[in-house]
């Protein structure tokens, strides 16, 4: 792996910074453990996705410009989120005024995508075991925007970069739900269409429960935050973690549900 020592800019989604710092810390640890010089540039903000998704280009522009400006000089930019990376990668055209954007674009990676495509599955070393049955949440932007796995609608060969990376953790059993379907988060969709959104989320959780799963992992904390909120309200026994937390060995490997945030 001659990529070792390359400079990686860590992008941490705004809500992850304040609500799920362990997912970000795990991402940092995993990248460092694989030999990268990781930096978290100060003064990061939102990638602009909520504004882009609501057609508010003028509001998104300064945020897109900030993102491009902060990350343009890194060899790679990695984030524990497919949807923020998707926004920066596919939705900044005609939005950012920064001329460096076309050069930055191919350097943007979601964590699993980076581990799979840049580090290479054969070079992955995770110093932990996780002997649990994990329900994989395949978020839409990971599957249908970044192409991290084959979407069920297409007649193409099956693959999943997320599963390939996660499967490198010793003892893990990965279970996918019966439906390849949106969880209903969708950013502001979750409040604009609150009732449909809640029904979609509960249906996803039920699908995982039917698989005998009590822990769900995904590459987007936002989807998981939505489902976690529903599960907590309903008193459903389900733990929600970012894939990075398992890769970094920061989730208890036994089935006891513990709040990983306690230590902060």
């Amino acid at each position, binding site marked *: 792996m001659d990529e070792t020592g390359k400079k990686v800019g860590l992008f941490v989604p705004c809500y992850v910074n304040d609500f799920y*710092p362990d997912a970000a810390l795990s991402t940092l640890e995993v990248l460092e453990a694989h030999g990268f010089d990781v930096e978290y540039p100060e003064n990061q903000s939102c990638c602009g996705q909520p*504004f882009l998704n609501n*057609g508010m280009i003028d509001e998104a522009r300064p945020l897109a410009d*900030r993102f491009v400006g902060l990350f343009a000089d890194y060899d790679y930019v990695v984030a524990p989120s497919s949807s923020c990376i998707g926004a920066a990668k596919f939705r900044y055209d005609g939005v950012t005024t920064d001329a460096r954007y076309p050069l930055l674009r191919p350097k943007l990676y979601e964590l699993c995508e980076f581990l799979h495509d840049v580090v290479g599955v054969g070079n992955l070393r995770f110093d932990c075991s996780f002997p649990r049955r994990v329900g994989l949440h395949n978020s839409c932007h990971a599957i249908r925007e970044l192409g991290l796995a084959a979407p069920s*609608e297409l*007649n193409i060969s099956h693959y999943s970069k997320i599963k390939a990376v996660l499967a490198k953790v010793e003892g893990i059993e990965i279970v996918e739900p019966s439906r390849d379907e949106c969880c209903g988060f969708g950013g502001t*969709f979750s409040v604009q269409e609150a009732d449909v959104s809640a029904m979609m989320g509960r249906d996803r959780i039920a699908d995982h429960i039917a698989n005998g799963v009590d822990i769900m992992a995904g590459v987007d904390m936002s989807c998981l935050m939505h489902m976690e909120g529903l599960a907590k309200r309903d008193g459903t026994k389900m733990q929600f973690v970012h894939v990075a937390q398992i890769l970094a060995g920061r989730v208890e490997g036994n089935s006891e549900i513990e709040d990983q945030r306690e230590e902060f």
Partner: protein
Amino acid sequence: MSGRFPPMDHAKNAAEFTADSERAHWHDRALWFVRQKRDRAAKSVPEWESLREAAETIKMHTMEHLGFYLERFESQARRNGIEVLWAADAEEFRHIVAEILREHGAEKVVKSKSMLTEECGLNPHLESLGIEVTDTDLGERIVQLAGDHPSHIVLPAIHMKKEDVADIFSKYLHTDPDNADPFYLTRAARDHLREKFLDADAAITGINFALAEEGGFVVCTNEGNADLGTALPNLHIACMGLEKIIPSAQDLGIFTRLLARSATGQAITTYTSHFLKPKPGGRLYVIIVDNGRSRLLNTRHNKALSCIRCGACMNTCPVYRRSGGHSYGYVIPGPIGSVLAGAREIERFASLPFACSLCASCDNVCPVRIDLHAQLYRERRAAINVPSYGEKRRLLHLAAWVMQRPKLYGVLMKTVRFVLPLLPRALVYNRFNVWGREREVPEPAKRSFSEIYRERR
């Protein structure tokens, strides 16, 4: 046109649908079943994705040369003895159909499925002139008897359970109200429709594909009702939106292979009927309707004109399956309906581009590869400026203003993280907290990642 109707609110309509959780789940499962059938059918064709690309290319080409192909169709059809008429809008279309029926003294009409006639309000118009119109597609007949509207373009009565049908049929077809056996009900509809077919003075059909080179057209049904309807009367009026044209019969196979597999998972529709000329002694009319379609040419909605009305985007849409077709308040529901409605009248349909979680599943099932979710994403730029979204726009504008000042945002969030756990539950879950209506608010971390990172260095 605009301003005639108040804005519709998809979220409000959807909430009414999801309130009956059992029924909403039944609706979702029924359509997911169709989506799974579609997947199996699509995966049984090794060249499926190439077929979709070919269909996309042919449709885009045809739309780029729409004038040429429509005129070619007109001249070829006339040569075959078909009378071709043009309608600029719904009103002209209704007038033309009524005039033809009047000329021929037709009082009883059988009509096979045509979303165009629904779009143009043909039935109520003809009925107001004393003409009896019978929809002969089973689903459409159920909806018609119920005084309802289709909630899906391929499965018009998918929002009704068999018990609902038993109830409606008992009123109009005098069946046993307690017998909801589908076979029993279908037999009753069949007997009833047979009489209508025998009595009809005229048949109206839709058109799935008009063939420019041959001057003929193709009608696809599963029930054979278009064929039964056109068999006896000497008058056949076929109606098409102007986007239904394809260059020639050579291209047809690509679309017939895609259409039924995408729609219901069948290899092909049970009946794929070709019409080339009037039957001996009969009259055959084709009415080409614009009604706002040509306005979409060379706009960001261009690709929406490629739609072949298979309904696959509805079956796969997680929102449509859980909110029902009527929640869209437009003749065509689901992702393609949201695109078309928004393109037609954004002020009224501004909530439709937002009735989408941007999951993009619709793009992947669309047999002609319409960029549905990207169109809805772009359409939000127009939708957000509609007056009814003023409050949302102001809130987001304020959020962006804060986000553009990371230091201020950091202080604010630190305060939130500190204060939130101290607040009484009733204050956090107040009536403005839409997130918290069904969900718990995430637990704030004691320290943010940026704080942890700084200490770690």
